[in-house]
């Protein structure tokens, strides 16, 4: 049978692990915590540190002296412009995703049943599972001048609409695939599932009896929607908006592939640390989206978004 208390090494270790809970816990948690502490937290600290450093003018090497130069430079019009433009795009994308996604979420939560519900759920999740770059590539082809979107607009005799949109100063451009309008469309496409799923979860939590009671008390469907459904779905909208907002703020690939030369936060960070070799400035500038997201998260928390996740 099993050995006595003075058994083999493995048996003694095993006994120690079982009888001393703390030991087991430590043994389990030390490797992942060590990894995350060193690799991830260490990286973030290094990012913070680098944001205070600067570049030597002659050698182009990083000078490890603390200064606020980077932050002073961020507060200049060029970079404030970039931050503002990115935040505006993030807000516009969030609104568009909410408008397009809400009906889908509502239908999925209130009207779909059984196999139809499962199919819809998979249909919304499926694009998320496909590669981000493939989906972006699909849109690059779609938005090209001889591509499918232009073809469809021509078939519907709506080319004048396209030309009018492309001629508009801020959002237009040479073609759909080289304009902020195109960037906007692709952003909405990419993050739409992230918005639909939390809203659907929130609406599902609304008891059907509440809606029936509302109509029993004489409310029209529009009133029920405005007074009951919308406020209760708001945490879901807030949760989805966290995704759309934060993902748009940090993205540098979509504006580069489907945009004109106007810069977004992610692009500035990427270029500064790459081609320009100015890692400290890139580090400082990357604190901007963190700050914007932190503010947004605080606002979202007040709206109850975290109850919906």
């Amino acid at each position, binding site marked *: 049978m099993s050995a006595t208390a003075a058994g083999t090494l493995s048996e003694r270790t095993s006994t120690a692990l079982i009888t001393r809970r703390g030991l087991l816990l430590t043994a389990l948690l030390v*490797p992942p915590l060590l990894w995350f502490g060193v690799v991830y937290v260490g*990286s973030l600290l290094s990012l913070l540190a680098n944001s205070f450093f600067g570049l030597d003018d002659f050698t182009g090497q990083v000078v490890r002296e603390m200064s606020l130069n980077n932050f002073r430079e961020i507060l200049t019009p060029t970079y404030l412009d970039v931050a503002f433009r990115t935040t505006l795009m993030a807000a516009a994308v969030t609104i568009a995703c909410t408008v397009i*996604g809400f009906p*889908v979420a509502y*239908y999925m939560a209130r009207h779909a049943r059984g196999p139809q519900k499962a199919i819809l759920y998979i249909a*919304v999740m499926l694009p998320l599972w496909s590669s981000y770059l493939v989906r972006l590539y699909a849109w690059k*082809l779609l938005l090209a001048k001889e591509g499918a979107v232009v073809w469809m607009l021509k078939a519907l005799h709506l080319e004048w609409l396209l030309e009018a949109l492309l001629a508009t100063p801020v959002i237009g451009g040479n073609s759909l695939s080289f304009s902020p309008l195109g960037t906007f469309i692709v952003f909405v496409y990419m993050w739409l599932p992230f918005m639909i799923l939390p809203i659907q979860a929130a609406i599902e939590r609304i008891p059907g009896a509440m809606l029936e009671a509302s109509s029993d008390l004489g409310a029209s469907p529009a009133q029920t929607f405005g007074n009951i459904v919308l406020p209760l779905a708001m945490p879901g909208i807030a949760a989805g908006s966290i995704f759309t907002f934060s993902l748009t703020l940090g993205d540098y690939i979509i504006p580069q592939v489907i945009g004109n030369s106007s810069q977004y936060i992610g692009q500035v960070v990427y270029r500064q640390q790459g081609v320009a070799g100015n890692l400290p400035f890139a580090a400082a500038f990357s604190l901007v989206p963190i700050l914007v997201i932190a503010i947004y998260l605080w606002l979202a928390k007040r709206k109850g978004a975290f109850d919906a996740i």
Partner: protein
Amino acid sequence: MPSKMTASAPAASPWLKLATLSGVLFLHVPLALIVLYAFSSEDKSYVFPPPGLTTEWFAVALERQDVWEAITLSAQVALVATAIAIVLGTLAAGGLARTKFFGREAISLLLILPIALPGVVSGIALRSAFHTMEIPFSFWTIVIGHATFCVVVVYNNAVARLRRISPSLLEASMDLGANAFQTFRYVLLPQLGSALLAGGLLAFALSFDEVIVTTFTAGQQTTLPIWMLQELIRPRQRPVTNVVAVFIIALTFVPIVAAYWLTRSDEDSHHR
């Protein structure tokens, strides 16, 4: 007045149905078109409708050396990163699944952070750390970045499964004389097995597809997403890119569906 005794769905207005259908189509038509374009005989490839259909581009793509190198590198990175993530994620799950101690929530948050923060921030944080420590960018820097955000994927699956496993199974095993290691190997691991496999598959798909953090942590290496990104900016042979795109769709779709199927019973018992 008819009473609704059964939980049948109320009828939806036709506008709602139309809006839903449009939304779903919006999500899927671009992908369907890419698959169509992979068969297009037109060289410029984005011409719609495609003038003809052919499978010649598949043969051309198979002969491209750079495509194979990119696929190989991506697969290697994904395998190593997944292995590390499985080990770390399972350990973390074991520590956090059923315990309560001070700082537990903070550790959960720490594990989620790499995915929660924008990729740019994680990417540049890692890059600045490697730069400061003067570590050259290589295969291993890519792996370190990928492993870090793959951990949470394995962790989620492992925790969901651990919460379903009854602790009395482990106690019974030890009552019958097994020590901790034997219990782990013969009782716990088989129960965890499919959840770890599912987590590993998801981690593999995540790593295979990752581009944002990879562009910050790679040196001269070209993973498949980086190859794809280069093609997006400076296209060489669009039809080949289409074929590779279809290949990527298949390759990332399969692990995720498999992972979903492996853990579908865990979803039902996951109480919030």
